[in-house]
């Protein structure tokens, strides 16, 4: 699948980029970091305009994120009401909603580029928690634009080393997720004592 996605990007450029990042933002597992780095390399080769690529990647991702948010906000509530016992009960859901509202802005911003595998989940929980749509969109746009600019620029700079750079950042993302998980579980263990 990855080969197909990258071949489509290489052949069709910006319109393909828009479509792929939007689909990835909904939750389809696409290695978005590698995709943006390859886009940067294509920009360095003159196949895609770099500014157009950043704009397409940002707007496409925001469009996909909006779908996740909308599902959480308008479609997910009925499901959660039906299956709240599976998620720890109604009280636990209320706590999660409160946390989502409290950490919303930072969570949305960093899950756009630093820990991107969490992005689709954050979109859903932001919608479920009734997080303000305007604030969600603002943080979402800032995070997606920053991420797109960062990785496309890296790809532009290391245009002949895209696979290695993509692999490094892909692994770093998982390592950061590991650190976050270890910190969370460690904290849970600490408060249990």
């Amino acid at each position, binding site marked *: 699948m*990855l*080969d*197909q*996605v*990258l*071949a489509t990007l*290489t*052949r*069709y*450029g910006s319109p393909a980029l828009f479509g792929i990042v939007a689909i990835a933002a909904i939750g389809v597992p696409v290695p978005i970091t590698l995709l943006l780095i390859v886009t940067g*390399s*294509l920009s*360095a*080769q003159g*196949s895609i305009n770099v500014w157009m690529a950043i704009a397409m990647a940002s707007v496409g991702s925001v469009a996909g994120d909006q779908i996740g948010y909308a599902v959480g906000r308008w479609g997910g509530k009925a499901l959660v009401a039906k299956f709240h016992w599976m998620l720890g009960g109604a009280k636990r859901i209320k706590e999660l909603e409160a946390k989502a509202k409290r950490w919303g802005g930072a969570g949305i911003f960093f899950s756009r580029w630093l820990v991107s595998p969490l992005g689709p989940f954050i979109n859903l929980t932001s919608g479920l928690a009734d997080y303000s749509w305007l604030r969600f969109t603002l943080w979402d746009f800032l995070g997606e634009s920053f991420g797109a600019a960062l990785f496309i620029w890296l790809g532009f700079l290391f*245009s*002949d*080393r*895209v*696979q*290695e*750079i993509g*692999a*490094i*950042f892909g*692994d*770093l993302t*998982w*390592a950061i*997720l*590991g*650190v976050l*998980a*270890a910190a969370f*579980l*460690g904290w*849970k*263990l600490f408060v*249990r004592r």
Partner: protein
Amino acid sequence: MRKTATTNLRTLLLVLGFFLAIAFTFFFGYRAGRTARHVSWQNEPIQSWMSVPFVAHTHHTRSEILFKAIGVPPNPRDRRSIRDIAREEKLPVAELIRTLRNAITDAKRPDSETVPPSGKAP
């Protein structure tokens, strides 16, 4: 009694999860570091999703040389992937990649008669 057993099980799961998360971090951190160490000298592997101009760019070779090597009319705007070309030319992808690799090696030889990537014809 049952409550204590449940609490112990939860603690055990948390401890296991904690060590698993640390192992996960080290594994991916190590892999990232190892890739970073090799990045400066390793040749970018040719993949089937790459177009011929893309391969030419990552290997600092002129795309015309590579197009000629695989028997396709040179066109820098040809963005078909190697897999698409292989399908259209009815060739195995691995063979096409091998031909490209050989053409790159030939082009980089000091006695090569081909034109360097950014230089002028000898």
